[in-house]
């Protein structure tokens, strides 16, 4: 498949899934009604559903899904590791610790901003710690140390969370577990604007790093000899990608597999040139999460979105893994 074709297919798929996401839910709405509402008319009840409930939720899915896939693709290129994913630097652990603390303290019911803010702060704490450890060894940042410190710090946060949950009532545990599986249910225009304001400029900045990111595939030393500012690219790229993940996790919880499966699928289809891989990963992740969210809320009770992405993502990943192993 060539790049233009895949790009066209993904744009069409994303537009279709946005429309489906807006149309379906507890009350199905026809395409004509949706278009009428978007044009400024339509029935006032349906108008409220579309503009204040479904549209922000769908758009949040687009931004968070696209952001996670983009961040995953960037981590994979920078860490030269195909198994890297957006939460690899302990971001999920940090965000969970923030969220669980706020839930355990019972602040969630009082202010709607407490949970996302605490999750974001936890994610930033994790990023800060991991980078601190990785750069403390010397002047240059060693990505192996970065990966290791991510794992270690994530384990530490996991222990903190286990401790908090072990002394909390069952109600708190349930809320925390549901949060950790991810959901777009809390979407409102506020969270859409918050996520978009960070993710979209960050996406443009990462796209501008695509050429030096390509060089990382042949190793840091050779990239350096080819004139790339390797340390600068690593630091900028990792920080931007980590912050995209942090922004996503603060508004939607931890949604696994999007950042791992989507970039791999795109890479298998059109190769690893980041100039194409990054934008197409964004489109692919946006489509995948929008559809996953639609499936999550179609049933009688809403299923956590992380369950859907894993149910779909794991088989896809295994098939791809098998295919890439048999082709070598």
């Amino acid at each position, binding site marked *: 498949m060539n790049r233009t074709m895949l790009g066209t297919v993904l744009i069409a798929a994303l537009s279709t899934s946005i429309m489906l996401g807006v149309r379906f839910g507890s009350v199905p709405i026809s395409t004509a009604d949706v278009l009428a509402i978007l044009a400024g008319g339509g029935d006032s009840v349906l108008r409220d559903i579309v503009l204040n409930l479904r549209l922000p939720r769908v758009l949040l899915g687009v931004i968070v899904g696209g952001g996670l896939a983009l961040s995953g693709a960037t981590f*994979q*290129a920078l860490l*030269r*590791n*195909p198994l890297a994913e957006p939460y690899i630097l302990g971001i999920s652990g940090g965000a969970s610790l923030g969220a669980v603390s706020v839930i355990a303290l019972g602040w969630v019911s009082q202010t709607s901003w407490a949970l996302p803010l605490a999750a974001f702060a936890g994610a930033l704490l994790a990023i800060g710690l991991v980078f601190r450890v990785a750069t403390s060894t010397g002047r240059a940042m060693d990505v192996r140390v970065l990966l290791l410190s991510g794992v270690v710090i994530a384990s530490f946060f996991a222990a903190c969370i286990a401790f908090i949950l072990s002394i909390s009532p069952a109600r708190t545990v349930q809320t925390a577990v549901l949060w950790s599986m991810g959901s777009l249910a809390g979407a409102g225009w506020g969270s859409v604007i918050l996520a978009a304001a960070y993710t979209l400029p960050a996406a443009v900045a990462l796209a*501008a790093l695509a*050429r*030096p990111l*390509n*060089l*990382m*595939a*042949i*190793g840091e*030393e*050779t990239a*350096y*000899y*080819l*004139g*790339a*500012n390797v340390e600068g690219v690593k630091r900028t790229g990792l920080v931007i990608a980590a912050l995209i993940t942090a922004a996503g996790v603060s508004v939607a919880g931890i949604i696994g597999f999007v950042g791992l499966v989507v970039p791999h699928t795109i*890479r298998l289809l059109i*190769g*690893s*040139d980041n100039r194409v891989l990054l934008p197409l990963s964004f489109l692919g992740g946006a489509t995948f999460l929008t559809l996953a969210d639609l499936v999550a809320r179609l049933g009688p009770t809403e299923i956590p979105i992380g369950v859907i992405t894993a149910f779909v993502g794991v088989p896809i990943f295994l098939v791809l893994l098998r295919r890439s192993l048999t082709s*070598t």
Partner: protein
Amino acid sequence: MRIEARDLVVNYPGAPRPALDGVSMSASAGCLYAVLGPNGSGKSTLMRALLGVAPLSAGAALLDGRTSAAWDRRALAQAVGVVAQSESIAFPLSVRQMVGMGRYPHLGPLESEGDADRAAVSSALEACDVSALAHRDVTMLSGGEFQRVRIARALAQEPQALVLDEPTSSLDIRHQMGILELLRRSADSGLTVVLVTHGLDLAARYADRMLLLAGGHVAAEGTPDEVMTEDTISSVYGWPVAITSDPESGAPRVTPRRPPPRAEP
């Protein structure tokens, strides 16, 4: 381009002795300059010091008279093509893409390849005899093909100098000769070629000058005939050798001697 080292001293933190201690050399345009020496003698460190990567404790590494640390990264990559000792590929990549990366220092951050870039890539592919592999995945190549592709990438930079760290190690005769012929042609066309190698005999046939390092010091420097004497080679490598003459070129050739049979008591 003139590549020069003046009394270089490199100390790695924690090492018992300097990796390089007072090394001087000079290679000018059109010269194929071989750097030789036993394992751990400082060959790769010299290469890194010349390129401004290893920290200098004393002395100077000069590229066209300017210290290599003072060169802008991108300008340096336009002027010097480097083939480092090893390279591991993280993601599948076509040969064409890999050689195209040699154009990186010539392009702006958002610029894509123009006619001049495509011409440079295709003549580099041609020169290294890898045009037919252009669409192959580099992770599927044989050792010899992979090395030729890496040299093609360095040539696609359209540099004035090439610096290579053991590009022929672990290759068979045909691929070794192919690469040395290519480097000789590159030098003859006006490039400065600095070649770090273990192959004394082939270096003697192809190089204009050689530098023999031992424990971070210069053991000998000069033409192959000047450097490759029985005394020098025997003492540097710690093994008795005989020097004969290569039947084809007349260049010196090393034969390590077997120890004499032990006399019966």
